[in-house]
């Protein structure tokens, strides 16, 4: 972790007496298979997708029913035991990092699709259901669930709700917050709450919007109602090459200016293109400084009309080469490299650190030049892939974690990129969440009064501060410490990302 700030309790030893008491209290109403405390059983839960942070949980609870969730919460609330909810553990910001002095509440057994209503186009699912499984189940009705994070074959809908996850199609179809109608859950005190409704709105404050993206700090989700969309008849993608990254960025802006909202609008720079071409052999243009993938979906007539418009705009924006997918196989081939960008980059470097800032699109050129200057300054390479349509960047810093100096330089590099995101009017995280990873940068992005408001909201839901403590919102004390350090760091060591089979962006 280099000189990054130590996390509270990260190395805390487990208190054996406390562990026994808590496990016993839970065993009073949970079957043996639902309570784990022996290290060989709890060790597999020590981290999520941000493997740099690990901590063996004191106790793991694996409830099977809502009543059990409620009783676990009530018991922990009464005993003042911290609780950390966990979905599939693919989170990239350490949101599901376990408590060394508490209970990791693993929702993995909540795997049931409760109800599909094809006429009303909703599905009611338990939080442990995998994102992709929802679309699979409703496919026979010609419907799907739109948000498609690249981890979708593994991540859970409960985790998506907690992180407000996005995917390549969210420019046109929205994020999790736009596609969930209702969440049922329990507060830390074990009180049931309904957020939203099966109608398009609910009375009072929009607590649903507050719950989504709250990183498991406000309530535990136990049932989720998602909106389903009709599948488009056709989708086709234009692949365009540019001899300059800034031109490619301007081309993305020109598409939007022409009144087109593509189903996907993604960009890879030359370094990323080289890495993925070696990996997937999709026939990418290796001469290009940047490649844009611009997708249109809809009815056959609509797509034909839109693709023609896209081609005209890209041509005028200086595309040096263009090809349009002629069939579904070709479309998937064009996308394959973009989808596999992370593992592909993983093959050309011992380690890489994936960042997740969002910036106004007009600052893209400036940002890319800045990153190029940091590559020189720190002597590290940094290919870029990003959601060009909404300005969400995923620069990938390549390093070797065995070289302490490289690790250190990577940290500095990443910190400068995050601070630059804030400086140009963007944000430190577009979709991966703050978790423990970016908690220090929260002190830069928000002023003390704003952080105090976040903490006040937290207290409304969880007066004792027991649900997922130490994540997402920094304490006053922490920001003071961080301020004193002067140097701003993030924590880039993700050398051993789990789920290596998944594309990463």
């Amino acid at each position, binding site marked *: 972790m280099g000189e990054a700030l130590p996390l509270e309790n990260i190395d805390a030893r487990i208190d054996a007496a406390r562990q026994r008491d808590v496990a016993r209290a839970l065993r009073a109403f949970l079957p043996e298979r639902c309570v784990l405390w022996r290290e060989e059983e709890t060790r597999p839960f020590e981290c999520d997708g941000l493997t740099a942070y690990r901590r063996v949980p004191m106790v793991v609870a694996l409830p099977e029913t809502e009543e059990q969730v409620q009783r676990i919460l009530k018991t922990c609330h009464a005993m003042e035991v911290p609780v950390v909810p966990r979905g599939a553990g693919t989170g990239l910001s350490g949101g599901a990092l376990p408590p060394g002095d508490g209970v990791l509440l693993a929702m993995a057994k909540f795997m049931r699709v409760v109800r599909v*209503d*094809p*006429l*009303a*186009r909703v599905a009611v699912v338990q939080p442990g259901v995998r994102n992709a499984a929802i679309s699979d189940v409703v496919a026979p*009705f010609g419907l799907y669930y739109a948000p498609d994070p690249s981890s979708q074959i593994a991540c859970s809908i409960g985790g998506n709700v907690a992180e407000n996850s996005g995917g390549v199609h969210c*420019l046109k179809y929205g*994020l999790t*917050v*736009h596609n969930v109608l209702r969440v049922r859950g329990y*507060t830390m005190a074990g*009180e049931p*709450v*309904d957020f939203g*409704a*099966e*109608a*398009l*709105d*609910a*009375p*009072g*404050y*929009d607590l649903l919007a*507050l719950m989504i993206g*709250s990183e498991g700090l406000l309530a535990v989700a136990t049932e989720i109602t998602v909106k389903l969309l*009709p599948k*488009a008849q056709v989708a086709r993608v234009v692949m365009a090459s540019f001899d300059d990254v800034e031109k490619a960025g301007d081309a993305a802006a020109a598409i*939007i*200016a022409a009144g087109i*909202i593509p189903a996907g609008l993604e960009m890879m720079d030359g370094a990323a293109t080289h890495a993925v071409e070696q990996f997937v052999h999709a026939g990418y243009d290796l001469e290009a400084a940047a490649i844009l993938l611009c997708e249109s979906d*809809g*009815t056959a*007539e*609509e797509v034909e*009309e*839109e693709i023609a418009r896209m081609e005209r705009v890209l041509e005028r924006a200086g595309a040096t080469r263009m090809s349009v997918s002629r069939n579904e196989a070709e479309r998937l081939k064009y996308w394959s490299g973009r989808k596999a960008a992370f593992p592909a980059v993983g093959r050309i470097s011992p380690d890489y650190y994936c960042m997740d800032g*969002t910036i*106004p699109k*007009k600052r893209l050129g400036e940002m890319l030049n800045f990153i190029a200057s940091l590559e020189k300054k720190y002597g590290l390479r940094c290919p870029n892939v990003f959601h060009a349509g*909404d*300005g*969400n960047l995923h620069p990938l810093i390549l390093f070797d974690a065995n070289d302490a100096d490289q690790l250190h330089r990577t940290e500095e590099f990443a910190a400068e990129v995050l601070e630059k995101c804030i400086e140009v*009017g*963007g*944000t430190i*995280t*577009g*979709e991966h*969440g*703050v978790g423990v990873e970016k908690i220090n940068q*929260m002190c830069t992005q*928000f*002023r003390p009064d*704003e952080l105090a*408001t*976040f903490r006040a*909201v937290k*207290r409304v839901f969880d007066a004792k501060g027991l649900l997922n403590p130490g994540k997402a*919102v920094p304490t006053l004390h922490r920001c003071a410490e961080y301020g004193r350090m002067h140097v701003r760091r993030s924590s880039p060591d993700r050398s051993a990302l789990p789920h290596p089979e998944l594309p990463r962006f």
Partner: protein
Amino acid sequence: MDAAARDFAERVRDAAGRKHALRLRGGGTKDFYGGPLAGEALDVRVCAGIVDYEPTELVITARCGTPLAELEAALAQHQQMLAFEPPHFGAGATLGGCIAAGLSGPRRASAGAVRDFVLGVRILDGRGRDLAFGGQVMKNVAGYDLSRLIAGSLGTLGLILEASLKVLPRPAAELTLKLEMPEERAIETLNRWAGQPLPISASAWHDGDLAVRLSGAASAVHAAAENLDGERVDEAQAARFWSALREQTDSFFDGDAPLWRLSVRSHAPRIELPGAQLIEWGGALRWLRTRADAATVRAAASRAGGHATLFRGGDRSAGVFAPLPPESARLHRELKAAFDPAGILNPARLYPDF
């Protein structure tokens, strides 16, 4: 702006010190909506103007007092729009009021509501603290999503100084069809259509007439129109129709019978209550002109999977919004107290007890 913001902050702090209620007000076009108006009026219209608008970013940032009409005109110059089609309910509607009221128009079912387009807000809370949440970018998950919480909070959590909204291109083509259809069949048909890739952007059923608006690429709109087989409505007439619906100037809204708004499951069967009904949002919104008592209307709405609001007129003494279940009510009261401990911002505008 900063002078205005400082001045507002001063007034809020002063009111908080004296526990003196403030009534935040833009154009006053939504004075009819929600609970009773209480407290000294604080007119926010001095704080107006578009701060930033970059069409290629699909984002506009403007101050609270900016007239909605001015905002929409600026967007129209670049063939863009507020996709949630907010009702103005009068010439003076402002951006701040639009967000605080959280009301969306005919396009809501297909495009989303106000809250779906709010990217960031700058507010003064009940202590007069100047706070910014969210931002000007489309994807942002740093901190709790308090800017969406502000949407629809009727000024009870803070004075909105400035807001950033996502905007969308205007559709290249638009066409309205009229079909004759009994109510039950219209509800079923609208739901079935919504499950197919059709470019339906608005719908309205009343008294046996179903109107459907198609928006999108010209080819898609025309192909769908062939498919749906309705009578094409003249363009100017269609524009008048949707605007009258959104602004509630249509004759359905005339007269003094209480107007109830029922937000329900889209395929809920016909609401069995006396009085005229108008259906929007593919079945998810039912307008009712009924003198049935509040308990009866609310019970019907919950059977339909939703809730009822006494939108205009009627006996407003017991509150106009559906009562909240206990834990949700506690969360509401305590959130209000977190933002506005002295309880001075638009008290009782949302619920009688805060």
